[in-house]
C-alpha cells in the first residue's frame, strides 16, 4: 500500500521535477496559452455573435444552418475538430495561415468555442422581454435597429458572466493544440509539460502545468460567480421595486 502510494507520488508529484519544469511552463507556455486563449476567444465571440443572430432569425433558411453548425461543433469530440481544422485545412489546400500552426490552432479552438458562445448570446438575447421588442417595432424601428438599440445592450449585460465563464473553458481547451505539433517557441503550457514528461519518463511536469492552470482558473471562476451574484441581486431588487 505504502509502496503504491510512493510510486504515485514519485510519478506525478516529484517536487524536483515540478520545480524543474515550472520555469519553461511559466516563461514560454503561459504567454502562449494566454495568447491562444485570447485569439480563440476573439474568433469564437465574433463568430458566436453572428451565429446567435442567425439562430434567432425569422427565416428557416438562415436558422437551420446555424442550428446545424452549433449542434455539430458541440457534438463532436474537440480532438476531432482540432485535427480536422489544423490538419484538414492545409491538406485541402486552404493554407490560410501558411505553415503557421499557431493560426490553425487558434482557428480550431475558436470555431469550437463559437458554438458555445453562440448559445450564450442566444440565451442572453432571448432573455430580453419580447414586449420591449414589439414596442420598439411598433414605433417603426426596423429589425436591425431593434437588435442594435434594444436587444444587444440589454442582452450583453446579462451575458458577461457566462461569457467570462466560457473564457475559462477556452483556457483549458487550448491544451488540445499540442496535437498539432507546435514549434518549440510556440508551445503552450500543456505541450511543454507533455514534452518534458516524455523526456524524463515522469508525469510530474504535467502536474506543474496543472498547478498553473488551476492558478488561472480557480480565482477567475470565483470572481465570475461573485460578479454574477451581484448582477442577479441587483436585478431582483429592481424587480421588487418595479412591482
Amino acid at each position, binding site marked *: 500500500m505504502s509502496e503504491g502510494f510512493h510510486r504515485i507520488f514519485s510519478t506525478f508529484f516529484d517536487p524536483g521535477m515540478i520545480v524543474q519544469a515550472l520555469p519553461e511552463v511559466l516563461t514560454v507556455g503561459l504567454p502562449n496559452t494566454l495568447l491562444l486563449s485570447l485569439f480563440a476567444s476573439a474568433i469564437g465571440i465574433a463568430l458566436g455573435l453572428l451565429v446567435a443572430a442567425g439562430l434567432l432569425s425569422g427565416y428557416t433558411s438562415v436558422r437551420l444552418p446555424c442550428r446545424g453548425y452549433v449542434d455539430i461543433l458541440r457534438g463532436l469530440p474537440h480532438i476531432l475538430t482540432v485535427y480536422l481544422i489544423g490538419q484538414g485545412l492545409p491538406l485541402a489546400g486552404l493554407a490560410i495561415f501558411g505553415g503557421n500552426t499557431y493560426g490553425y490552432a487558434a482557428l480550431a479552438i475558436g470555431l469550437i468555442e463559437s458554438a458555445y458562445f453562440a448559445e450564450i448570446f442566444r440565451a442572453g438575447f432571448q432573455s430580453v422581454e419580447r*414586449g*420591449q421588442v414589439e414596442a420598439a417595432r411598433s*414605433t*417603426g*424601428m*426596423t429589425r436591425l435597429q431593434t437588435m442594435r438599440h434594444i436587444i444587444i445592450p440589454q442582452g450583453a449585460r446579462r451575458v458577461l458572466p457566462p461569457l467570462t465563464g466560457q473564457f475559462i473553458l477556452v483556457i483549458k481547451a487550448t491544451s488540445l493544440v499540442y496535437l498539432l505539433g507546435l514549434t518549440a517557441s510556440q508551445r503552450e503550457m500543456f505541450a511543454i509539460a507533455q514534452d518534458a514528461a516524455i523526456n524524463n519518463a515522469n508525469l510530474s511536469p504535467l502536474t506543474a502545468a496543472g498547478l498553473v492552470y488551476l492558478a488561472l482558473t480557480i480565482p477567475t471562476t470565483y470572481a465570475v460567480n461573485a460578479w454574477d451574484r451581484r448582477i442577479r441581486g441587483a436585478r431582483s431588487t*429592481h424587480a421588487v*421595486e*418595479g412591482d
Partner: protein
Amino acid sequence: MSEMPERRQTGAHHGTSVRFDRVNKSFGRVAVLRDIVLEAPGGVTTCIVGPSGSGKSTLLRCTNLLERPESGRILLGEIEITAAGANVDAIRTRVGMVFQHFHLFSHLSVLDNVSLALRKVRRMEREQAEDVARAKLAAVALGGLERRRPSDLSGGQQQRVAIARALAMEPEVMLFDEATSALDPELVKDVLGVMRDLATAGMTMIVVTHEMRFAREVAGQVVFIDQGRILELGPPDEFFDRPRHPRLRHFLEKVL
C-alpha cells in the same frame, strides 16, 4: 394634462380612419378573428369590449401588423396595409401602440425611451428629438422625470411614458391594449385622463378596455367581440342601455 386643443369628437370626422374588411386570423387551428368588418372613423374613439380570449387584442395587433391576418384587408386611411409589399415599418410610424404591461425600454432613461425612435427612425438630431420628447412628457404630466429609469416609476407613470413614446412619432391613430388593466386602482385615473384628453383632441383611437365607464363617456362607438366575431356595435348609450344580443346582455350583467 389638458393642454391639448378642445375639439368635439362627434360631428365632422377629421383624422385617419381604420377599416377592417372581412379580416380572418387563426393561431394554429383556433380561429381568433372571423370575418371582422369594422370601421373606426377618423377622430373618433372606438372602444372594444368582450370576454378575455375573444380576439380583441389580436384585432388591435393586426392594426399595426404585429399580427398578420390570414385573409381580408385592413385600410389605414386610403392605404391598404395588408397589401403584399406594403412598407410595414413606415406604416407603424403612423400607428401608435400602448401595451398592457407598458414595455418600456428598461436600460434607457425616460427621456431616451421617448426620443429613441425620433432619432433612429425620424433621423432627428439628439437635441431636437429631446425637445420633442420633453414636450410630450410634459403633455402627460411627467415633466421633471426625464432622467429617471423606468424601474423607478410607478405603474401609472410608466404607462404615461409609454403613451408619450407613442405620441412622439405624431401618429394618426392610437391603439390601446388594455392600457389600465395592469395598474393599481388609484393609478388608473391618471392614465384614463390622458386618454380622454387625446380623444377630446380628435385623435383616432381604438381602445381595448375593461373600463366600461370610460367607454360610455369617451367612445364614439362601442364594439362587442365574442369568440372572434363582432356581435354588436353602436353608440355608447344604445350599447350599454339597450343591448340587443343576449351574449352582450350576459356580459354586461357580469361586468357592470
